[in-house]
Structure formats: structure tokens, C-alpha cells
């Protein structure tokens, strides 16, 4: 009995102690996060854990953009004070990071996260606190459905999957598709689902649908099944590390049908991992193409290479665009006021970014083209851009 009581008292004491240090701040004013010469912008991505490479690239892109903007005098005369929080690839930490940015740091606008699961746990926090959140690359459709403060600047899995189907059916004139997807990954199953729906709607036939478990390295059963179904295109909505293995195993089983995939393929490691020639003649959809000759892309690629010594990935490009979207919205709003910034974001039209020219639609998603790339040797060459209008 005594010990039970002691425990409860100790618990209470710990609670009380941890509280005295921190007082609640009043952040009801819409202009918070702004001082005379700085404006606080939050960034939460995973720089540790499973998504560390994605988060790291995004952060590099963001850092580059912030550096450029601050060197050019900031936003309406105020320098960006970037507040970064790591989400450790865990939704719980994403939630905590969001609360920290929203309340203690009191940022004007928040950017993040890459993984949809983490964006989903952060979104309710920013929604509740009335802070606009712009996700650079969370593709799960439900992310922006969490509230009217939540925006994203990448295309969605349904568009991406459907665009790949349009590309396979109309550009490549393929009739029989096989799908090989990662059953543990929402991104992969989502793309597979939307590809199938569109491909069949366009008169094609899905002859085989196979899936594998995350972290598998052996795909022989699935490949044999797909081989027996005799498709003329194989849709592999997976990440580059899986794609490299899958490509190799398809080729060693004598299947030389082109593979097609989504933005998960994009990586400097895809070709080295798969081996030279393995993926020649395969296609994938991506957010941008480094070979794009628009001025903004050229500048970005050159500056990024100078700063980090490597070619920027799509995630870096999206992180970079994210900061400029925030800047543009604040400028359009004409004030450092969250409600006005939210309006400006919702009405953003024809934004010229690295990842294409885009507008924000009524569901707070970006309406933008996808670049279909063809793998030729070490190069990813742009075949064409598919506009949203072609897919609907």
C-alpha cells in the first residue's frame, strides 16, 4: 500500500517538476514567428532511420533554397530562420516534432514531411494551430484531406499510376501488362492499383499481378509467374534498390520486356546496382528531369552540384521548390499573416518551379505534369511530359 502511494506521489512529482520549467506562450496572433528582420519557417523530415536518405536530400534542397533567398535579401526584407526537426522515420516522432515547431518554435509556415505516414501524424497538429503546412513529397491522397491548412507540391500516386498507364497504352502501344509490387508499401500498392484501373479502362489487359514482401531479395516465383503470363510491359512500382534486383533477375530469366516504374526508381545508384545495360530501354515517371533546359532547372542543378558535389534527386528538387512556394505565398499574401498566407497558397497559380509549372487545385494538391524518362546507358532521357489533363 505504502509503495503504491509512493509511486503515485512520485509520478505526480515528476509531472509537476517537468512542468515548472516551461510556461505556455500565447501564440494566437497570426503574425507569430516573425521578428524585425527574420521569419521562422519550420522543416520536419527524417534525417535518421529508414527514410534518412530521402529526408537528407530534401533538407539539402531546402538548405540551398534558404541560402539563395537569404543571400538575395530574404522574403520581403526578412531573412529566413529555418527551424529544423528530425522525425527519425517514426510517426510518433513526427507528431512530437510538429508540436514542437507549432508551439515552442512558433513557426509561420511549416514544411514536411517526405513519408506520408509522418505527414499524417503532423497534419492534425498544424491544422489545429492554424499553421499552413506544405509537404514537399508526401504522395498519399489522404494527407491533404486532413484539413484546409495542409498543402502539397508533388503529384499524387493516383495521377502517377494513371499517367504511367496512359504512357504504356498510348505512347508505347502496349496491350498486356504485368504488375509486380511491394505489398508492404502503400506507395507501391497505390501505384499498382491506379495503374491497373487506368490501363484496363484504356482497353489494355493486366495479365499478371504479383507482389513481394519488403526487404526480399529473391523474386523468382513472381518472375516465373509473370513470364508465363507473357506480358509486353511490366509495371514495377518499387524503390530503386528493389528495382535493381528485380531488373537483374528478369533479365537472367530471359525476360527482355521493358519495365516501367514511378518516381521511386530515381537514384544515382539504380544503374550501378542493376549493372550496365540491364535496364536499358526501361521507362519511369519522375518529378523533373535534370536535362530540362528551363533556366530555373539549370540554375538549380548547377548550384546544387557546386554545394554538395552530386546531382540533385527529385526529393532535393521538391524540397527546393517547397521553400520557393512558401516565399511566393508570403509575398502574394502581402503580410506575415498565417490566414492570408493560407489563402495565397490555395490560390497559387502557374508557379514556375524546378519540378514543373504548377498550380494548387481546390483539394490543396499540386496540379502538375509528370516527366516520363527513358533509361539509355547511364542517362535518364526525357521522353515527354504528361499533363494532368491527359490523364483525367
Amino acid at each position, binding site marked *: 500500500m*505504502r*509503495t503504491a502511494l509512493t509511486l503515485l506521489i512520485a509520478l505526480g512529482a515528476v509531472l509537476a517538476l517537468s512542468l515548472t520549467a516551461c510556461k505556455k506562450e500565447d501564440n494566437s496572433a497570426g503574425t507569430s514567428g516573425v521578428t524585425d528582420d527574420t521569419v521562422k519557417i519550420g522543416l520536419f523530415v527524417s534525417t535518421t532511420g529508414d527514410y534518412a536518405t530521402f529526408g537528407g536530400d530534401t533538407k539539402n534542397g531546402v538548405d540551398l533554397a534558404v541560402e539563395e533567398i537569404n543571400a538575395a535579401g530574404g522574403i520581403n526584407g526578412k531573412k529566413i530562420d529555418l527551424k529544423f526537426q528530425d522525425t527519425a522515420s517514426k510517426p510518433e516522432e513526427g507528431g512530437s516534432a510538429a508540436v514542437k515547431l507549432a508551439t515552442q518554435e512558433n513557426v509561420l509556415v511549416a514544411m514536411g514531411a517526405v513519408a506520408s505516414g509522418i505527414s499524417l501524424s503532423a497534419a492534425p497538429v498544424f491544422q489545429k494551430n492554424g499553421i499552413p503546412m506544405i509537404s514537399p513529397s508526401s504522395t*498519399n491522397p489522404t494527407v491533404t484531406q486532413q484539413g484546409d491548412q495542409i498543402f502539397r507540391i508533388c503529384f499524387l500516386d493516383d495521377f502517377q499510376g494513371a499517367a504511367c498507364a496512359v504512357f504504356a497504352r498510348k505512347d508505347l502501344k502496349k496491350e498486356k501488362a504485368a504488375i509486380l509490387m511491394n505489398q508492404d508499401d502503400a506507395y507501391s500498392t497505390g501505384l499498382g492499383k491506379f495503374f491497373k484501373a487506368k490501363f484496363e479502362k484504356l482497353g489494355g489487359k493486366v495479365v499478371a499481378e504479383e507482389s513481394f514482401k519488403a526487404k526480399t531479395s529473391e523474386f523468382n516465383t513472381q518472375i516465373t509467374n509473370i513470364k508465363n503470363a507473357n506480358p509486353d510491359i511490366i509495371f514495377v512500382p518499387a524503390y530503386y534498390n528493389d528495382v535493381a534486383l528485380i531488373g537483374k533477375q528478369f533479365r537472367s530469366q530471359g525476360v527482355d520486356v521493358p519495365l516501367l516504374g514511378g518516381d521511386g526508381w530515381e537514384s544515382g545508384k539504380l544503374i550501378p546496382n542493376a549493372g550496365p545495360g540491364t535496364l536499358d530501354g526501361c521507362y519511369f515517371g519522375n518529378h523533373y528531369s535534370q536535362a530540362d533546359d528551363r533556366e530555373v532547372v539549370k540554375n538549380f542543378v548547377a548550384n546544387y552540384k557546386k554545394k554538395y558535389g552530386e546531382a540533385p534527386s527529385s526529393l532535393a528538387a521538391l524540397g527546393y521548390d517547397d521553400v520557393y512556394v512558401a516565399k511566393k505565398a508570403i509575398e502574394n499574401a502581402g503580410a506575415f499573416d498565417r490566414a492570408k498566407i493560407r489563402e495565397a497558397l490555395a490560390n497559387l497559380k502557374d508557379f514556375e518551379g524546378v519540378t514543373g509549372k504548377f498550380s494548387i487545385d481546390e483539394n490543396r494538391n499540386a496540379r502538375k505534369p509528370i516527366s516520363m524518362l527513358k533509361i539509355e546507358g547511364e542517362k535518364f532521357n526525357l521522353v515527354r511530359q504528361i499533363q494532368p489533363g491527359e490523364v483525367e
Partner: protein
Amino acid sequence: MGRMIGILVVSLAVVLGVNWFLDSYIDQYVVRVINMCGISIILAVSLNVINGLCGQFSLGHAGFMAIGAYVSAWFTTTLRYFDEAQAKYVAIEPMFSSQWGFVPALIVGGIAAAIAGAVVGIPTLRLKGDYLAIATLGFGEIVTIMITNFETIGGANGLPGLPAYSNTFWIFAFVVIVVMFSWYLQRSTFGRALIAIRENELAAEVMGISASRMKVMAFIYGAFFAGIAGGLLGHLLQTISPATFNFMKSIEVVVMLVLGGLGSMTGAIVGAIVLTALPEALRDVESEIGLVGVRMVAYALVLILLMIFRPQGIFGQKELSLKLLGRLIPGRKSGNAGGEE
């Protein structure tokens, strides 16, 4: 019994007061960390009954959490899923659409997890040590795979849009309940039987303890509260996904126990608080230094150092009591600090 109810009522009133205080005066971020600590305490204390008291090494706690989280969400959340036949999103309205449905939903989630606990408990009749750990790990995997392939509850995408019902009051109400129950359990015939099984199963059987029944009971008890914790976490984060409940989550809880001292409830509580609050406290250090990843390195370092210098955990198998505190204060005899009993 009467006294137990009395303590329960008083502590719930205290929790209610604390909840009001936190809501009105304290930074939301600190409240969030406190709430996460509360959920970790429920998890660690309930796992302590299986791993610490009964000595059955289980890695299935995340699986029980997942069941509790998804079952409770089933009752409180509007389910939207993509219907292949109609090729559009379909919505199912929740059964309990108000805050009043939260506790019933949590309890149902806990019961579902407890049933799973009974199912998992049965192989423990044959398996021990590492083999049991692997079997429970397998159970956790089965749960996440089943959720992944269940489109109605979001599949691999996870289930967003859970109502924000969890707050400090509910979380700490369950902390109080699990701590009190586990405390009484530890001193009851049942608890003593569990300890006897841990120390020597054969000897316990000889003394007339039905080891198989006791082990299954321990699993049911632990799983019930893990399910409650899962439901609380889901309604705090407002989104759940199979990836949240992977085996790393189970390992995190085991680490909390080992850090605090396997078999000590106080240890479980301290371990839960330290391992939940530490990474958060280190956030400021990280932004101060500006070196990404320092947080996780420091976290790992604490674990390594502790295991080198205090392999039995912070508390070993001891409990914190006024007696222990009394002994620390010079000039006082031990034992007369606590008053009655």
C-alpha cells in the same frame, strides 16, 4: 478493496486536476511529451508482467498494440477506402461518434488484444526463452501483415483521421489503473505464482502452481493493457499505420524494461519516461549543435553506458518505496516514514 477504490478515486481526481492545469498553463509540446511518456508507461508496466514477473520473453507487444489501436479506431473513426468494384472512395460512419464512445472503444480494443494474448499464450506452454521470443515476434508480424492486406482499414496506407480523443486525463487515468493493478498483482497469489514460475518453473509446478494457466493469464493481462495503450496512441497521433507497430516498437518497450530493471515496476516506469523523454529533450541539443543525428547517437550512448555500468538496469528488481527513501535520509530509522500498514 475499499481502500483500493479510494486510492483510485483520489488519483483520478488528481489526474483530472493535472489535466486542467496542463491544458491551461503549459506549452502543448511539453504536454505532448508527457502524454507520450504516459503511453510508454502503460506499455512498459504491462510488458513487465509478462517479461519481468513471469519471465516469458515476449516480443509481441507491438502486435497487441496494433490490435487495440485498430479495433478501437474501428468504432470511433470514419473509414474511407477505395472500392475496386465502384472505383471510388466509400465511407463507413463510425459506431461511436462522440467522446463518450472513446472509453468503450478502448476497452473493446483491449479485450480484442487480450483474446490475441490468450492465443499467443498457448504456444508459451511449449516454448521458452529465445524460441518464445521468435514465436511472439512472428505473431507481431502476422498482425501487421493482416492489417496491411485489409483495405477497409487503410491497408499499408494506414488509417488517418482518428478523432483527437486522447488527452492527458485519459492517458494518465489508464496509467494509474495499470500501475495500481500491477502493484496489487505483484503482491497477490497470482503475482507470486508468476515470480515462482520465473525463478523455477519445475519447482513452481511441484508447489501446485498451474504454470500453463498462469502464463496464459500473464499474456492476457499484458495484452489487454497493450491494446489500451495502442488505442490511446492512435487517438493521440490521429493516424495509425502498420509500420507504426512493427517489431522495432516491441523492442523499444523491451529496452525500456531492461533499462529500468527487468522485473521492477518502478524500473519499468522510469525506463519508459527516460527513453521517451530523452530523444525529445535532446532535440534542443541537436539544433544547438546543428549536427544532424546527434540525438540518436546520444540516445544509443546512454543505453550502452548503462548496460556496461549497470547491467541489471536502473532499479534491478527493486521497487521504489518510502522505506527506500527513508533509508536515504540520515537520522531516520527505516520503516516509519510511510505511516499506516
